[in-house]
């Protein structure tokens, strides 16, 4: 008995143009992610070396928050952690996708897309929070 394929006749593939576009995208994402990783590392270094100085300066600039200077340091570390996660995801996307295109590996390709998806999910959540802050700012006028 003949076995008919369930796959549609017209489907989307990673053709030559897609490969070229994705390879160029991964070059830029790799550059951005490496620069980001270096930036986050520098930020963490500054926080570790000059955390107490920053906390003191913060307290002097805004006397109302005196004693809460350490909170600023914790917030900076949290920001660095989120940024670190984002640039790592971007790096994973560029590495997995490039390797998938070179080896024609579907699983690696999907892992690359998954990393980019999580990157955009975090980006989207930050965008929503920023928008809420802007709306709050609008009502203060």
């Amino acid at each position, binding site marked *: 008995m*003949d*076995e*008919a*394929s369930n*796959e*549609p006749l*017209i*489907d*989307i*593939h*990673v*053709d030559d*143009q*897609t490969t070229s*576009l*994705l390879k*160029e*995208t991964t070059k*830029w*994402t790799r*550059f*951005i992610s490496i*620069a980001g990783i270096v930036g986050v590392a520098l930020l963490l270094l500054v926080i570790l070396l000059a955390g107490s100085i920053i906390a003191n300066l913060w307290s002097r600039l805004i006397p109302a928050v005196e004693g809460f200077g350490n909170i600023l340091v914790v917030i900076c570390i949290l920001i660095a952690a989120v940024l670190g996660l984002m640039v790592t995801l971007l790096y994973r996307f560029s590495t997995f996708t490039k390797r*998938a*295109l070179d080896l*024609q*590996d*579907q699983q690696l*390709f*999907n892992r690359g*897309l*998954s990393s*980019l*998806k999580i990157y*955009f*999910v975090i*980006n*989207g959540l930050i*965008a*929503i929070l*920023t*928008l809420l802050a*802007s*709306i709050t*700012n*609008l009502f203060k*006028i």
Partner: protein
Amino acid sequence: MEVQQDSIFKLGFDENAKELLKSLALWAKICSVCAFIGYGINLIVAFLGRGNSRLSEESFNAVSTANYSRAGAIASALISAAIGCAINYFLYRFSIETNRGVNNLDQFQLNEGFANLKTYFKILGIILVIALILFGLVFLGVLASGGVKEY
């Protein structure tokens, strides 16, 4: 007899990849739309926000300073909105074209989407390069001024 339909493309978009792309497109759209609205609100805040404080100032100098500060806020809001909208336009186009490409199984639209994603990251990369150059120049300037003072 088994009908074998081997594609010339080994790498494709299986169901998992299609779901990932749809989700990716959705979040990219959320990012870009939030950014567009945010820039609009920032512009409104910049144009209207400082108006009341200027009226409350009494001395001429204070009014002048307030005007400069307001002009600076408007200029920075305009520049950031122009750059941000230009970048997010490509992200928005990526989300629309990719979603259509996946839903209609249209290779051309899918590639258009990826081209927009490439442009989005390319612009981000170029802005990063410019920012790094400016940062380096400022850093060198600070070092040079420190050296001149010591001399």
